[in-house]
């Protein structure tokens, strides 16, 4: 779906991420010496073609949201590159980035805290359009009305304040704001996690429809496996700052190769009481602290198949074609 494949000049992917790292220093002591590093994102690489959706899953603390912000250059990466539409973003100044920013937008988890409670919705939607001088005067008003209608809200709503909307409607406004500048890429950071299930379905449908109509590319970060599977063409699984498996969504969820992917799938509650899970499939313990990640394979402390080698040697992400896995002993 979303089969627009009018790739950029050079025919490369819309987004290319190479060895992306973000290490936060930990300071302590009298003079705030650097005493360690939290490796929130630690060497992630992937490509994302125009018009497609890459879903990113992983527990909280896996670094998936940080990665989203790094790609949008909302935070400076410690290392690695982000190439968007054939141009390298890391190292650009804020002034150079500004024209690029219109093409990359974000939708947040909590639509309420990302909207200004004291400004009318219409003004908030119109503001980026005016700031980036895409349109002027009455044309802005018209565009705002159009944006509200695109996300399934009435154009009259532009005079209302955020508190007058329900959670689902607010998320629609959040999406409208992301669309205001005609972006190519939208990073969706847990866009449905805070919503009721029935509303989640409405928003997922909307995102999918918009992708078809506007040829959008999504990086869809979420922890709800069903939603990610539904919307994604490809899925990447993150664990402690590393991508441990990536591939076509049907293949990855149908026959996962990394034990962590398999554990995530086994944790997902069943769709029917007939499929209640067996006791032994539950993954033990919490995700370890990214300040002191385990040596070797980071998953080995919780992995049911871990062997001696896993505790010492770090596996690299490899595989034929698009399905890659970082595991010494993949499941098949």
């Amino acid at each position, binding site marked *: 779906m979303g089969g627009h494949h009018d790739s950029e000049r050079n025919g490369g992917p819309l987004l290319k991420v190479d060895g992306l790292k973000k290490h936060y220093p930990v300071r*302590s*002591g*009298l*003079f705030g010496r650097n005493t360690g590093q939290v490796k929130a994102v630690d060497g992630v690489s992937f490509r994302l073609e125009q018009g497609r959706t890459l879903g990113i899953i992983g527990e909280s603390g896996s670094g998936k949201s940080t990665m989203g912000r790094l790609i949008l250059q909302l935070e400076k990466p410690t290392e690695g590159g982000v190439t968007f539409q054939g141009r390298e973003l890391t190292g650009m100044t804020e002034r150079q980035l500004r024209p690029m920013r219109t093409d990359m937008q974000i939708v947040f988890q909590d639509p309420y805290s990302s909207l200004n409670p004291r400004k009318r919705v219409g003004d908030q939607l119109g503001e980026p359009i005016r700031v980036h001088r895409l349109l002027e005067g009455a044309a802005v008003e018209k565009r705002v009305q159009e944006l509200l209608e695109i996300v399934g809200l009435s154009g009259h709503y532009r005079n209302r304040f955020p508190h007058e909307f329900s959670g689902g409607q607010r998320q629609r406004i959040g999406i409208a704001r992301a669309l205001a500048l005609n972006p190519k890429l939208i990073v969706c950071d847990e866009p449905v996690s805070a919503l009721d299930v029935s509303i989640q379905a409405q928003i997922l449908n909307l995102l999918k429809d918009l992708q078809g109509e506007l040829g959008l590319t999504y990086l869809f970060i979420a922890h709800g496996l069903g939603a990610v599977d539904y919307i994604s063409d490809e899925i990447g699984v993150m664990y402690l700052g590393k991508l441990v498996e990536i591939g076509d969504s049907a293949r990855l969820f149908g026959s996962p190769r990394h034990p962590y992917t398999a554990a995530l799938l086994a944790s997902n509650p069943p769709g029917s009481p007939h499929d209640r899970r067996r006791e032994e499939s539950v993954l033990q313990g919490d995700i370890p602290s990214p300040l002191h990640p385990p040596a070797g394979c980071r998953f080995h402390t919780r992995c049911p198949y871990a062997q001696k080698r896993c505790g010492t040697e770090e596996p690299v992400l490899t595989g034929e074609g698009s399905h890659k896995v970082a595991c010494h002993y993949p499941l098949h």
Partner: protein
Amino acid sequence: MLNYLLRRILIAIPVLAGITLFNFLIINMAPGNPVEMFINPSMSQADIDLRKEQLGIDDPVFIQYFRWLGNMLQGDFGYSYSSYEPVAKVVGARIGPTLILMGSSLLLAYIIAVPIGILSARKQYSWLDYSATSFSFLGVSIPNFILGLGGIYLFALTWKLFPTGGMYTLGKEKTFGDLLHHLIMPALILATASAGSMVRYVRSSVLEVLGQDYLRTARAKGLSEFVVINKHALRNAMIPIITVVGLDVPLLFGGAVITEQVFGWPGMGQLMIQSIGSRDYPTLMAINLIAAVAVLAANLLTDIAYAAADPAIKYGKR
């Protein structure tokens, strides 16, 4: 925690140096100088210049500052230009009365404001809440000197309940009872402004805590309302209020200057006004230094208290 304290104290040193320099410059920029304050028509220009040289005020301002700083670091605050006594002695005699006045008014402000704020929050939108709110606004907005003069007129002149001013009755033995009798009016009046804003802080802080999930948990555990409020709610509500205490100290200093003047309280505020009048630079500098140290110390104490009350800070996780 110890590291944090040390770091804070180290930071305070350059801040203090900056404050004293700034004060010194401002005092010297004010028109007039100490010598002009006591010249008489019979003095010749040569006499005046000699006097200036003796006081050292004919030197450039920066040299004067560093001379003062050097002496101060050796514990020598100089001599008062007006009374010719050592500044340490002049100011030292005034610290006690000011501390008594400020301390008791701070205490009074809290004794009044905390219970009213809590009640006001628990009975939100009741007549009690509304009247507490109205009185707190009055307390904040009526200037201290008006309240002071009004108080003197009513309680001292009309009803003769309290003395009009001073710290002890002249010619009588200095007793604690006499002190208390003199203290009540200025302390209460100085407390009104702090109490007024404090009621608002306590109220909003308690209101915020009353809506928290953990109070629902506490009730769901079957704890009595008394335990829920006094153990689970108040400790959380007090954390933001502690910060305000620190902010109150500089305000009280300002208030004390006015109140001491109105009530003839022999404290630093009164001395400060006199010293400004006579351009008594060494005395002024000493008072400013004490005020600055007091404010910084209050901020530091606030941070320590804050950390003690909030475990997330105590263990350096925030």
